[in-house]
Structures are given as structure tokens and as C-alpha cells.
């Protein structure tokens, strides 16, 4: 009988309830979209941040005046850890060399590295010409904008690098603008730099690009410290903190908006239910006169509110997932994947919101049957 009455209640008040479902569905759509963005897009955004370059640096401790280096076997040690968060690893060997292009010559820092990884980890650099994407390339180089200007180089020109009496002649593949010290450097393949420096199997430092929040990055650093004893492992604080702050702000904005939407949805349901409560005063008075307990009558109304929350929640979830995809693309430029965990969260929130909005119906429990039957 309970379900029979509930169905009749829902059917009889379908117009008003449709309004309430619409209010809940609107709230559910926005909540779903934002919760999905929080779960999915912020995760993707942390990966997107990785195009901003490395956020962890592994280096050998300072030892006298000589530039410290470490054995390149440490790269393999890092890779063998198979850390899920590590998105990229690039070793660097720095040489303080002389560069000559035609009539121009100047002292430059030459960075021997895995050129393919540099291209991948620093995809945000502005490049005039082309990246060098062959890790062992011995014929081409990338040159920073400031160094290129000093030497009068453009893509396709030849630059000669001299170090310790050894010399290499390379074609400029691309001129990179990073807006930092890299603009004054020349990037060549690591094997060639090791030959020029006579530092076979040595690197100056290893840059690591890792995904994750600040605590997750701290955890990666901790695990690297255990695997690489004697080496210094430092986060690039400025970048990591900026990323963390931005993500925290995005999350704060998302949760703040969800909260606001929940309040507004409750008010929407409240408005629809207030009208319904007026219509139902007489029925409640009558039900109480017939021996209906407040608990039994209220259970009907709360079931009705739950049904509204469910219906609106499911409808809103479907719309919200589409909205999440759209916001992800348009605002954050990332594609989002629907996370099913959002469905129970949305449904639970919407049922709670509907129950909160059903306050006017709950107040009907106070109706005195004698007042109603007297026509008050």
C-alpha cells in the first residue's frame, strides 16, 4: 500500500514535482560536471603542467671547485624504480665551452642531453625551426635565443663548439625561447658532450618530470633519496608550489561552486514543496484523523523527496557528464573521462538536498486534524 500511495502522490503532483525534479536535475548536472572535473580534469591538469618542464632535480653534491658530476648509471636506477608518477627523465652534462659561427665567437654553456626527452618535457618552449628528436644525434643542435642572437645564428646555420682542444661542428635545427637560463645555452646530444668533455658515463644532473600533488611529489623525492644514496634530490619549489596553488584554487572554486549549487537547489526544491505542502494540509489532517501516525505519513513524503532526488540526480548526472566534457575542453583544454564514482556521490547529494528542501512537507506533521476538519 505504501508504494501504491507513493505512486499516486507522485502522479497527482506531477506538475509541481516536475519543477522540483528540474531544480534537482539542474543542480545535479552542475555538481556532476564539477565533481567529474575535480576527479578527472585536475588529474589531467597535473599532467598538463608537466609540459612546463621538470620539477625534480637529481645532482651530485658539491665537491671542491670542480663542477660535480655523477655516474650515468643513476639514470638507469631511476628508470628501474618504475615510479608511476615519473613522466620524463633527462640527464644533463654541462660544459663551459667556446662557440663560433662565421666571424662571431662567444663563451657558452653547452648542455649535453637526451634531445628527444628535452623536446617532450619542454614542449611549451617556443621554437623557431625544429626540435631535434633523435637522442643520439651528433650532427644537429638546439640553441637558446640569446646565444643564437650573440652568435648571429638562424636555423640551418653551422655552429662550431670547442672544449678542451676538441671541436664539433653542428647544424642549428631550432632556436628555443624558454624565458630562462636555457636561452643562453646550446643543447647537443649527451654522447657527443661526453666525448667533448672526456667524461664518458658522467652527467652533471638529472631532471625529472613527475605528476601529482605536492605531497605526491614529496613522496617521489623520498623514494628517489632511498634509491640514490649520496645524491642530492631537490624539488623545483617555485614551479611545484605554483602548480599546487593553482590546483588548490581550482579545487576550492569547484567545491565552492558545488556548495552554492546545493544550497540553490535546496531552495528550488523548497519553493516547489512549499506550494505542495499547502495543497497537502487537508490530506495530512485527514490521514491523521483516520489513525495515520506522523511517522507513517512523513515516511511517504520523505520517500517522495527521495524519489525526486533520485530522478533529478540521474537525469542531472547524464547532462552533467556532457557538461563536464564541454567545460574540460573549453576552459581547461583537456578532455575528461566520465568517472562513475561521481554517480553515487551525485545521487547521495541530491537525495540530501531534496530531503532538506522537503522541509515544508515535514512541517505538515504538526497539522492538527481538528483544525483541518473545521475548515481552518
Amino acid at each position, binding site marked *: *500500500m*505504501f508504494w*501504491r*500511495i507513493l505512486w*499516486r*502522490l507522485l*502522479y*497527482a*503532483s506531477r506538475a509541481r514535482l516536475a519543477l522540483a525534479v528540474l531544480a534537482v536535475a539542474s543542480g545535479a548536472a552542475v555538481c556532476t560536471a564539477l565533481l567529474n572535473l575535480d576527479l578527472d580534469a585536475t588529474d589531467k591538469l597535473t599532467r598538463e603542467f608537466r609540459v612546463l618542464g621538470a620539477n625534480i632535480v637529481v645532482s651530485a653534491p658539491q665537491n671542491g671547485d670542480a663542477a660535480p658530476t655523477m655516474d650515468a648509471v643513476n639514470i638507469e636506477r631511476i628508470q628501474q624504480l618504475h615510479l608511476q608518477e615519473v613522466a620524463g627523465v633527462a640527464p644533463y652534462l654541462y660544459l663551459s665551452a667556446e662557440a663560433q659561427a662565421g666571424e662571431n665567437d662567444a663563451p657558452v654553456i653547452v648542455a649535453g642531453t637526451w634531445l628527444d626527452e628535452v623536446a617532450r618535457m619542454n614542449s611549451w618552449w617556443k621554437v623557431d625551426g625544429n626540435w631535434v628528436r633523435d637522442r643520439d644525434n651528433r650532427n644537429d643542435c638546439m640553441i637558446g635565443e640569446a646565444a643564437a642572437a650573440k652568435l648571429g645564428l638562424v636555423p640551418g646555420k653551422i655552429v662550431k663548439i670547442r672544449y678542451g682542444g676538441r671541436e664539433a661542428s653542428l647544424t642549428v635545427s631550432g632556436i628555443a625561447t624558454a624565458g630562462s637560463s636555457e636561452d643562453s645555452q646550446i643543447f647537443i646530444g649527451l654522447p657527443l658532450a661526453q666525448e667533448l668533455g672526456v667524461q664518458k658515463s658522467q652527467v652533471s644532473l638529472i631532471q625529472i618530470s613527475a605528476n601529482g600533488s605536492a605531497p605526491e611529489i614529496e613522496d617521489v623525492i623520498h623514494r628517489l633519496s632511498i634509491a640514490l644514496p649520496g645524491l642530492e634530490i631537490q624539488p623545483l619549489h617555485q614551479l611545484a608550489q605554483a602548480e599546487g596553488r593553482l590546483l588548490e584554487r581550482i579545487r576550492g572554486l569547484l567545491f565552492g561552486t558545488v556548495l552554492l549549487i546545493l544550497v540553490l537547489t535546496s531552495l528550488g526544491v523548497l519553493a516547489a514543496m512549499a506550494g505542495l505542502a499547502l495543497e497537502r494540509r*487537508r*490530506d495530512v489532517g*485527514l*490521514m*491523521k*484523523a*483516520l*489513525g*495515520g*501516525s*506522523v511517522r*507513517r505519513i512523513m515516511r511517504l513524503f520523505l520517500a517522495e523527496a527521495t524519489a525526486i532526488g533520485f530522478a533529478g540526480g540521474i537525469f542531472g548526472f547524464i547532462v552533467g557528464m556532457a557538461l563536464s566534457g564541454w567545460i574540460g575542453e573549453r576552459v581547461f583544454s583537456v578532455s575528461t573521462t566520465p568517472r562513475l564514482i561521481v554517480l553515487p556521490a551525485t545521487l547521495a547529494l541530491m537525495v540530501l538536498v531534496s530531503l532538506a528542501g522537503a522541509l515544508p512537507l515535514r512541517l505538515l506533521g504538526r497539522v*492538527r*486534524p*481538528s483544525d483541518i*476538519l*473545521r475548515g481552518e
Partner: protein
Amino acid sequence: MMAALVQVEDISKTYAGVRALDSVSFDVRAGEWIAIMGPSGSGKTTLINILGGLDKPTSGRAMVDGVNVGTLGERELTRYRAEKVGFVFQHFYLVPYLSALENVMLAQYFHSVADEAEAAEALTRVGLGDRLDHLPSELSGGEQQRVALARALINHPKLILADEPTGNLDEANELIVLELLRELHRSGHTILLVTHSPEIGRMADRRIELAHGRLMHIVANVN
């Protein structure tokens, strides 16, 4: 002599300083049909509401089937209304979105368990076997009142309280409802019926006449 099912002892009821009932006392034996009469504002409905557990007396005792209705708590009153009394109102008071059958089943549901077959049988007894699935808006006034009668009887109450049950009916429907009440009386039901109509009053075993909240006369009818 049958024991009194209802004992009203020196009952008074005051609403915001206005005395709706003033020291009213009488007894009703089981199986009796009592007509409560009097002009508007004489306290008829207040008396019915107190006996039905919808209102509480300011002073005095209202005993129904050994229960002092005025002292019951909210939960006990709910059970009392579900088990001891059956209401029939002038304005029918059916739930508009429930069918005739469901309106009767609603009373069963609040009492214990809804039994569709029993509810259908009760409606058939009042001549509405072919109107089970009709909504109140699809029924005439007389038919709605018969649904209300079936609803009042479905839980086999000790006492039927009818507040001007024919007040909103045309003559033909009034006769049908009165005939049903007669049948109930013949089958041993105790009925307290509020009416303005002297003809209906004369159909009862006794008439209790109220004026300004006071009991003026108790008149035994010779039927």
C-alpha cells in the same frame, strides 16, 4: 441493560476564552444510535471531535470503551483513532488522488494491513462495486459519502461518529446514506450522528440537544 460504551462526564471545552462545551454529561450504550442536535455553534462538532480523539476536553472525562480519551498521548490517540472510531464527515474528506478502493484501503493501512479484497467487498456492500477504481472527482456526492462510510466501517470500529453526513447530499443520496446508517444500526453498530434535521434526529434511538455548549435535553424516540 447493556453497559455504556461512551460515558461523557462533565465535559467542558474552551477555545480562546469561548466555552464551546459547558459541563456536558451523558452515556451511550453499545448498539445505540444517538442524534446530536442543536443550532450552529452549539458544540456538536466539538463533542464529536473530543469523542473521536481529534480534540481534548478542557475538563471532564470522555470514556469510550473504557478508555479515557482526554488523557491519551499522541501515539495512543493515533492508535485509538485507527482502532476504536470510524469518522464520516459532511464534506466526505476523501483523499482526492486515491481511488475509491484506495481510500478504503488507506484506513486499513493505518490500522494494520491493507486488504484489497476486503476493501472491495466493503464498497460493494455500499453499492459501489462498479466504482472501485474511480477517483473521488469521478463520483457523485452520494457515492463519495458511501465511500466514506465504507472507509469508516472497514476496521470494525466500536463507535461511528458522523458529522452531518447528509448535509451536502441531495434528497435521493440522503435516503441512500440514511438507509445504510439504518442497516449499520440494525447490525449492532453504535452511531453518534450530528444533524440539523429533525427527521433524521427522529430516526435515532435518542436525541441529545445542545445549545450554547450546554446539554438541554436528552429525548428518547419511539421508533
